[in-house]
């Protein structure tokens, strides 16, 4: 599951920009304005942030010594959040979100260092070398500045009086009063109305935009990039998203990716970091990739229809973000993967805790309903941060199936890999583990050492196709997709069945529903 996220990172890292660098021995020539390349980098960041719904503006000028500066500011109140300058030939980055001022001749390493010191998501303590796209890092730096400097206020303004045609709330914005800066924030009227039912904020943005920031955060978390284990459809979807961000996807050789793109290294890394927020985020990204390959309905969810309906749940939470009660929701809507499905309509909501560093606490999946047909397949919105007890009990008796780690081949030393009973779609990349000769459904659990991710996907597809309303919950790295009737109308299910796919990174996908939802795979799995 995690590997797909690594691949996303790889895609984003696929194009190397030289960025602006100067030799430390550089002797300042007569001061000059930013070069076209430098300006292009700044505006690239601006464009990416705008696409992410962050209300950013830029301004620039020359000092009385004709030395250039460039600022990003919040368009709602005009406050400058980060200041770049070139003074005496040396670059400078400063902003209220950052305690220190970065100076240096190598802009790329400055940005890299700033991200390392101010990650959006906690970085690994393993001390691994970071090797990611510098443009993504710059986005992370500026995005973090916005995040830390109180994007909440902008969101509140938008939520309180949103223009009818405008529904691009900012990512990671919040009306919470547990912002990173601890500033008290008034409860917007819309949010206040929903305060009883929602204890967190919700924002929505298209998948590519969410992926931008999540990927930037992921990159900031200092995780290695694994390149060789990409599921082709996911590669296409993620590459498309990355390309839309101007951050990657081009054919430029990737010279920044880690040298040891060995799957086992990534897996070991993933396993070691299984409980970290970054790991969870990577699983979320993987889930995006996985879901991008699923069938889609005709209609799209209109992101404008979903309001900023969340709110911090009232008083008593006036802390500075340390109480963990605040939430940021980033919703991915719709999952844009034009090269995979033209009418993709998945919405993935990711709940981030509002502590000093955001934790991914839950994931929600929403799928559009086709018209108002009662029989239309849909996935209902659920809002859970932990599994309902009834689900936990069912899952405790679930059938467990291991999903093959990448690199394990049929008959390999770790056991047989079982593929789908029906031949899966050709896999152009050849990275997905599946045996050349699919094993039939007569295989029983007792004989299954590993199943391929293709099989998992097919079982999920089948489960969804045969379940009227699928709800989704996430508990840590455990993703549960279940028949909504289990919690709403348990008596309607004649035979509750559950299967747990355990992924190599110790995350899991659980399917819970009526036995009929598993149909062709029933005898195969159980």
């Amino acid at each position, binding site marked *: 599951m995690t590997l797909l996220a690594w691949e996303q990172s790889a895609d984003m890292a696929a194009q190397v920009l030289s960025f602006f660098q100067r030799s430390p021995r550089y002797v300042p020539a007569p001061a000059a304005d930013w070069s076209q390349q430098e300006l292009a980098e700044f505006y690239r960041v601006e464009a990416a942030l705008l696409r992410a719904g962050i209300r950013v503006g830029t*301004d620039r*000028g*020359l*000092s*009385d*010594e004709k*030395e*250039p*500066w460039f*600022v990003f*500011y919040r*368009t*709602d*109140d*005009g*406050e*400058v*959040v980060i*200041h770049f*300058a070139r*003074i005496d030939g040396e670059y*400078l980055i*400063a902003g*209220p979100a950052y305690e220190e*001022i970065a100076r240096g001749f190598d802009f790329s390493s400055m940005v890299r260092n700033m991200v390392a010191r101010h990650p959006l998501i906690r970085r690994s303590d393993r001390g691994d070398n970071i090797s990611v796209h510098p443009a993504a890092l710059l986005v992370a730096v500026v995005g973090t500045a916005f995040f830390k*400097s*109180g994007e909440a*206020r902008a969101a509140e303004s938008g939520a309180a009086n949103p223009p009818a045609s405008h529904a691009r709330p900012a990512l990671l914005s919040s009306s919470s009063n547990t912002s990173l*800066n601890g*500033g008290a924030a008034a409860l917007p009227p819309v949010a206040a109305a929903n305060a009883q039912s929602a204890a967190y904020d919700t924002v929505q943005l298209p998948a590519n935009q969410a992926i931008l920031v999540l990927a930037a955060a992921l990159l900031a978390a200092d995780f290695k990039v694994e390149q060789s284990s990409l599921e082709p459809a996911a590669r296409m979807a993620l590459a498309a998203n990355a390309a839309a961000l101007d951050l990657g996807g081009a054919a430029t050789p990737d010279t920044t990716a880690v040298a040891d793109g060995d799957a086992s290294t990534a897996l070991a890394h993933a396993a070691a970091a299984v409980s970290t927020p970054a790991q969870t985020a990577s699983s979320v990204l993987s889930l995006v990739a996985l879901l991008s390959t699923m069938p889609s309905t005709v209609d799209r969810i209109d992101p404008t229809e979903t309001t900023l309906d969340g709110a911090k749940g009232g008083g008593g939470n006036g802390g500075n973000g340390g109480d963990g009660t605040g939430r940021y929701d980033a919703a991915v809507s719709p999952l844009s993967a034009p090269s995979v499905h033209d009418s993709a309509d998945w919405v993935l909501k990711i709940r981030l805790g509002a502590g000093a560093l955001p934790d991914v606490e839950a994931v929600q999946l929403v799928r559009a309903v086709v018209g108002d047909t009662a029989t239309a397949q849909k996935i209902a919105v659920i809002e859970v941060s932990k599994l309902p007890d009834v689900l936990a009990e069912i899952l405790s008796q679930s059938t467990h199936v291991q999903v093959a780690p990448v690199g394990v081949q049929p008959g390999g030393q770790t056991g047989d890999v079982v593929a789908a009973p029906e031949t899966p779609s050709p896999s152009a990349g050849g990275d997905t583990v599946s045996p050349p000769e699919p094993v039939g459904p007569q295989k029983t659990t007792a004989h299954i050492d590993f199943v391929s991710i293709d099989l998992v996907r097919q079982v999920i597809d089948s489960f969804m196709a045969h379940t009227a309303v699928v709800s989704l919950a996430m508990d840590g790295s455990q993703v549960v997709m279940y028949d909504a009737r289990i919690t709403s109308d348990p008596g309607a299910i004649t035979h509750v069945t559950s299967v747990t796919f355990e992924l190599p990174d110790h995350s899991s996908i659980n399917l819970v529903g009526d036995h009929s939802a598993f149909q062709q795979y029933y005898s195969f799995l159980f």
Partner: protein
Amino acid sequence: MYGNPQRRSAPEVQDLRREGGRWLKEAREAAGLSQRQLAAKVGADYYTFISQLETGRGRIPPDRYRDWARALNVPERTFVRELMRFYDPITYDILFNEE
């Protein structure tokens, strides 16, 4: 960061900031200071910040008002009052625009 939301349109706020920036520039030039010199006097970590302020982007942090007033040879009260006109026009109107 000092939040100071004004119930004015963004262009109005920005116009005032620009006006304030011009006033600061005039005061600096009147004091015979370069931007770099002023930055050193007011404890700004980078002198391009002065340039930024003079274009109307951003604000002088309140905890630096006294330093700025001294550096520009402007009485503190006068300096703050003038800044308030640009940074906080609502408060300024209440306090100083007597009918």
